C-alpha cells in the first residue's frame, strides 16, 4: 500500500473512530449515572458501591487535601520497579547461562519444574519471615514473581534457534560469542519480550499481595486500612489508581516490544526500512 493510500484510508476512518469514542463515553456516563442513582435510591448497597461522586471527591481528598497516598504509592512502585528489574534480569541472565551450557540445561530442569510448580504466593510468608516486614521482603517477593516468565521464555527462545541458521553462522566461521550476539539473542527477542510483559503484568499484583500478607506501608496496606474502617470510597480511589498504573505499564511494555521487535510489525518494519535507507544515503553523501 502506498503512503497516499494509507493517508486516504486513515482519513476515511477518522470520523468513524471519533463516533466510536463518543459512543464509549456515552455508555460509560450512563453506567456511572445508573450507579449513582442506584445507590441514592437504595437499590445498590452503599457499602459495596460507594457513590461515584464520593469516589471523585476521594481522589481530591487523598491526593491533594491529605496527600497521604503519595508515600504509599511511591513505596509500592519502588518495590515493583526494583523487584521487576532484579527478578527479570536474574531470569534472563540465568537462562542465557543455562542455554549456553548444555550439561547445566539437563541437570537444572527438575529444579526448575519443581520451583515453577510451587505457588509463588505460598512462599510469601516464608520470605517475609526471613526478610522482615519492610520493603526488602516485598522486593524479594516481586523478584520471585518476575523471575520465571523471562527465564522460561528466554531459555525457550535460545534453544529453539533454527538449525539451518546455526549452520549458516558456523559456515561463516562465526565464534560462539558472535552466534550468541548476532543470532541467538535477536532471535529470542520476541519471546524474551513476551516473558517481560508477563512478568511486568504480575509484578504489581505480587507487591500488593506481599503487602497484604504483612507490611507497615504501601498501597496494599492503605487498601487494607480503608476497607478495615469501611471507607469504601477511599479504598476505590486506591484501586482505581492501581488500575491506571497497570494500564500505563501494559501500554509501556507494548511500546517497548514494538520498538525492540520491530520486524514483527509491518508498519514498523516499513518505517525502520526507510530510516536505514536514509542513514545509508547520508553516509554516502558524507564520504563524497
Amino acid at each position, binding site marked *: 500500500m502506498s503512503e497516499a493510500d494509507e493517508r486516504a484510508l486513515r482519513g476515511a476512518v477518522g470520523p468513524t473512530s471519533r463516533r466510536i469514542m463518543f459512543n464509549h463515553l456515552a455508555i460509560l456516563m450512563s453506567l456511572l449515572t445508573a450507579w449513582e442513582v442506584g445507590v441514592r435510591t437504595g437499590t445498590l448497597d452503599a457499602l459495596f458501591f460507594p457513590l461515584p461522586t464520593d469516589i471523585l471527591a476521594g481522589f481530591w481528598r487523598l491526593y491533594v487535601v491529605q496527600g497521604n497516598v503519595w508515600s504509599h504509592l511511591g513505596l509500592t512502585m519502588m518495590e515493583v520497579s526494583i523487584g521487576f528489574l532484579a527478578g527479570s534480569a536474574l531470569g534472563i541472565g540465568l537462562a542465557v547461562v543455562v542455554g549456553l551450557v548444555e550439561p547445566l540445561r539437563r541437570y537444572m530442569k527438575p529444579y526448575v519444574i519443581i520451583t515453577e510448580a510451587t505457588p509463588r504466593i505460598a512462599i510469601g510468608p516464608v520470605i517475609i519471615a526471613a526478610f522482615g516486614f519492610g520493603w526488602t521482603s516485598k522486593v524479594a517477593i516481586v523478584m520471585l514473581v518476575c523471575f520465571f516468565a523471562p527465564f522460561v521464555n528466554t531459555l525457550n527462545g535460545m534453544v529453539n534457534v533454527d538449525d539451518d541458521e546455526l549452520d*549458516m553462522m558456523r559456515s*561463516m*566461521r562465526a565464534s560462539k560469542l558472535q552466534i550468541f550476539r*548476532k543470532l541467538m539473542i535477536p532471535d529470542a527477542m520476541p519471546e524474551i519480550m513476551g516473558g517481560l510483559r508477563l512478568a511486568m503484568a504480575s509484578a504489581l499484583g505480587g507487591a500488593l499481595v506481599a503487602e497484604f500478607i504483612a507490611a507497615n506501608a504501601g498501597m496494599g496496606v492503605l487498601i487494607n486500612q480503608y476497607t478495615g474502617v469501611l471507607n469504601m470510597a477511599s479504598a476505590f480511589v486506591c484501586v482505581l489508581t492501581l488500575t491506571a498504573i497497570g494500564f500505563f505499564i501494559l501500554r509501556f511494555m507494548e511500546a517497548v516490544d514494538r520498538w525492540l521487535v520491530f520486524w514483527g510489525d509491518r508498519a514498523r*518494519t516499513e518505517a525502520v526500512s526507510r530510516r536505514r*535507507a536514509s542513514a545509508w544515503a547520508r553516509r554516502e553523501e558524507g564520504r563524497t
Partner: protein
Amino acid sequence: MTVAELRPTGTASADLPVIAARGVTKTFGDGRVVALEGADFDVRPGEFISLVGPSGCGKSTLLRIVAGLLGSSAGSLSVHGEKVTGPRHDVAMMFQKPTLLAWRTAIENVLLPTEIAGRVTDKDRRRAMDLLELTGLKDFAFSFPSQLSGGMQQRVALARLLQTGADILLLDEPFGALDEFTREHLNVELMRIVGEVGATTLFVTHNIGEAIFLADRVFVMTPRPGRLAKIVDVPFARPRSPELQLTPDFNQLVAEVRTTLGAVA
C-alpha cells in the same frame, strides 16, 4: 566496479584439484546407518558440479562434509590441498531456506559474513551493493526479509554467499522451495553469476534436468547406502539457454542419469 573485481579472493591454482575426496564415508548411530560410503572424486578449479539423487543418497551429507560442518567417519577430504577440519574462509554454503536474519535489511544480511570476519569498510559496503545489483535486488537493498518474496530472499542469500569471497560455493537445493518458473529463472541467473565470478560450485538437487542443465559434470548418487554411483560429463557449450533442455542430446543425458538411478532403486 568490473566483474573481475567481484571475483573471489581465494587461491585457485590450475593444476591442483580444488576438492579431492578419497573414500569419504559418513556413518550415524554407531555405524548402523551409512549415510555416505566411499566417495572418490576430484573437482577442478571453476567447475560446476551437480549432485543429484533421491533423498537419503548422501548428497547433503557430502556437501556438509565439504563445508566443514560435519566430520567424516572415514576417508579423507581436502580443499586446496589441505585436509578439511572445520568451516574454511574459502568455502561458503547456501541452504534450501534463505536463512536471512529477520531483523536485518537485505544489505545488512549481505554484509553479515564481512561483519563476522572483521570490521566492515566502505569498500565492503560498496561490494555488497554491487552484489545486490548483480542479483537484481539493488532497489530492495533496505527491505527486510519479511518484505521480500521467497525468490527475492534467495537472491539476497546468493549475494551474501558471494560476499564471503569464497571461491568454492556449496548450494544445497537453493531454489527447491520456490515455484517452477521462479526456479528456472534463478537457475539461469545462478549460472550467469557463478560463471562471471569464476567460482567452483557444488550444487545439490533432486531434479535431474536441472542438474544437467547447470553442470559441467553430474555426480549421480544412489541411496542405502549413500554412494556416488556414476559421474556423467555434460558436454554442452556455455552460455546455455533454457531451450537446450528440449534438444535430443540433452534428453539422452537425462535418460542416462535416470537409468543409473533406476538400476539401483
